[in-house]
C-alpha cells in the first residue's frame, strides 16, 4: 500500500474497530471501518431496526460571541436567524461563484453560540475557509472542536428505544433536527441531536473523545441495542443508506465545480437573506433561467451496476454527464445512481444509457430520493 503518505488519522474507537475485525479503509485520510459485519446486513439493520456508526472523523467548528449570528449568516446559505436555541438545520458554505466549500449542519447552541458540523475529508480546508471568511468580523471567536468529540450516530426505527435505555432525557421530546443536552451512559451534558445521514430516524451524540470513555459508550450502545438486533456499521453502509435517501456527499454530488441549483439544494439557499457568500452568483444563475445541468436519480433497467464516475449517454449516443454515486440499493434491491445530466434529460422515465466497461446499459430517470421512510402518524 502507499507507505509514503502521511499516517492515517484514527478516531478514539480505532482499537475497538480493529479488535472487532472490521474492515478498515483510508477515508479522506482517516483509518475508518468500511464493513463491520457485512454491508447488506448493516444497511438492513438501520432500515429495519438499529445500527451504530462511529462518525468521529466529522469536524466541529464553534462560532461564539455577540457577532456569531452575523458570521454564520455571512458564511452559510441557509437562514440561521430562523433557528431557535436547540435547533439545527442543513446548510452549506459556498464559494463566491455559488459552488460548494462543504455542506454542513448548523446547530444553535445559544444566542451567541453556533456549532457547525462539517465533513471529515474537508476539515482543514473548511476551518481555513471559516477563519479566512469570517475571522475579521467583530465579536466572533472561531474554535475548531473537531478532536474534542467522539461522535456516534445511532440510526434506525429502534434508535430511540436503544438510546432511551442509556439516558434519563425523554427522547420523545426531541423533534427531528432538534437537540438537547442530557446525561448519557452516566456522562453529563452530552449533546443529543436527532440528526443523521441515513434517511432514518436516529440520533447523533457527542461524547468526550478520550479512548476509555469512547470505548465504554460504544459498548453500552451495542449492549442496549442488542435486543433489537443492533449492528455496528461501517462507512460502506453509511454510503448506501445516504444514497438511497438521496443525500449529497461532498466530492460526489457536491463540490467546488457544482453549484447549489445544479445539486437540487436550492431550497436551502435563502436568497431573501440580504447577503451571504455565493448569493450574487446564485442570483445570476437564477436570472439566467436556472442551471444547465441537474442532478437526477437513475435506476438501471438492464442488468448492470452504474458506479461513481461512469459516463451517462443519451439513447442516441450523446455524452450527457457522469454518475456521481452509484450502487446496488440493498433495501430496494435495485441498482441506482445519481448523475448530472442536461435539463432536457431530467424528465421522469427518460431513458439513458450508462457505459459499464465498454457496454451501453439502459437506465431511466426516477424521482429522488429513492427511499423515503414512512412518516409516523403523530
Amino acid at each position, binding site marked *: 500500500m502507499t507507505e509514503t503518505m502521511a499516517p492515517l488519522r484514527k478516531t478514539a474507537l480505532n482499537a475497538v474497530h480493529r479488535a472487532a475485525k472490521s474492515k478498515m479503509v483510508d477515508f479522506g485520510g482517516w483509518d475508518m471501518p468500511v464493513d463491520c459485519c457485512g454491508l447488506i446486513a448493516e444497511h438492513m439493520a438501520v432500515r429495519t431496526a438499529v445500527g451504530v456508526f462511529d462518525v468521529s472523523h466529522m469536524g466541529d467548528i464553534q462560532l461564539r460571541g455577540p457577532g456569531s449570528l452575523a458570521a454564520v449568516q455571512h458564511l452559510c446559505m441557509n437562514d440561521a436567524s430562523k433557528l431557535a436555541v436547540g435547533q439545527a438545520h442543513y446548510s452549506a458554505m459556498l464559494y463566491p461563484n455559488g459552488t460548494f466549500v462543504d455542506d454542513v449542519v448548523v446547530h444553535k447552541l445559544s444566542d451567541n453560540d453556533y456549532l457547525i458540523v462539517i465533513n471529515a475529508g474537508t476539515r482543514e480546508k473548511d476551518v481555513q475557509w471559516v477563519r479566512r471568511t469570517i475571522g475579521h468580523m467583530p465579536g466572533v471567536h472561531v474554535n475548531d472542536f473537531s478532536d474534542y468529540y467522539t461522535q456516534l450516530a445511532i440510526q434506525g426505527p429502534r434508535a430511540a428505544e436503544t438510546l432511551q435505555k442509556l439516558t434519563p432525557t425523554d427522547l420523545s421530546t426531541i423533534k427531528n433536527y432538534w437537540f438537547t443536552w442530557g446525561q448519557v451512559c452516566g456522562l453529563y451534558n452530552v449533546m443529543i441531536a436527532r440528526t443523521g445521514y441515513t434517511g432514518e430516524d436516529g440520533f447523533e451524540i457527542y461524547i468526550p473523545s478520550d479512548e476509555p470513555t469512547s470505548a465504554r459508550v460504544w459498548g453500552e450502545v451495542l449492549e442496549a441495542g442488542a435486543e433489537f438486533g443492533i449492528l455496528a456499521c461501517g462507512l460502506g453502509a453509511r454510503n448506501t443508506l445516504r444514497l438511497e435517501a438521496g443525500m449529497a456527499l461532498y466530492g460526489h454530488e457536491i463540490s467546488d465545480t457544482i453549484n447549489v441549483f445544479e445539486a437540487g439544494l436550492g431550497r436551502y439557499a435563502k436568497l431573501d437573506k440580504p447577503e451571504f457568500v455565493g448569493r450574487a452568483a446564485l442570483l445570476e444563475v437564477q436570472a439566467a433561467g436556472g442551471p444547465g445541468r441537474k442532478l437526477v436519480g437513475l435506476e438501471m433497467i438492464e442488468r448492470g*451496476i452504474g*458506479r461513481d464516475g461512469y459516463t451517462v449517454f443519451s439513447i442516441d449516443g450523446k455524452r450527457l454527464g457522469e454518475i456521481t454515486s452509484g450502487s446496488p440499493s*440493498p433495501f430496494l434491491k435495485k441498482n441506482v445512481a445519481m448523475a448530472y445530466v442536461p435539463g432536457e434529460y431530467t424528465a421522469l422515465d427518460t431513458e439513458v444509457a450508462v457505459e459499464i466497461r465498454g457496454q451501453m446499459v439502459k437506465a431511466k430517470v426516477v424521482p429522488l430520493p429513492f427511499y423515503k421512510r414512512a412518516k409516523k402518524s403523530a
Partner: protein
Amino acid sequence: MAYPADYRYTKEHEWIKVDGNIGTIGITDYAQNSLGDIVFVDLPKVGDTVEAAKSFGSVESVKAVSDLFAPVSGKVTAINEELKDAPEKINADANTTWLLKVELADAKQVDGLLTAADYEKFTSEETGH
C-alpha cells in the same frame, strides 16, 4: 481461512481444481472476504475461450467491481447458472462455489500456479499480518 491443498491459486485470487483435462474455477475465500457482499457475477458463455492471466469476467460487491482473471487458457464447458440469482453463495462458501469449468488448453499451465501454502503466504504478506 482455509485453502484446499488440492487446488492451485493465482495472485489475483482465483482458485482452480483440476480433474483430468477439466479445470473448475472459483474465487478464494480471501477474495470474497475482501470484496464483501457479492451482488453480481459477469461470466463468459459456454463455448467461449478464456486466456491465462487475461480477464474473463467480473464480480461485483455492493461497493466495488473486480475483474476475474483466468488461471489457465481453455474453452468454457460450463458456467455456474446458480450465481445469476444467488451470487451471495460465493460469500457463504467460496471454496465450493465455482464460477466456470474449462477444458484445459495446456495442462502444464497449472504447474505455474501457486500452491495453497504459497497462496496463503502471499495473502498474509498482502494484508501485512
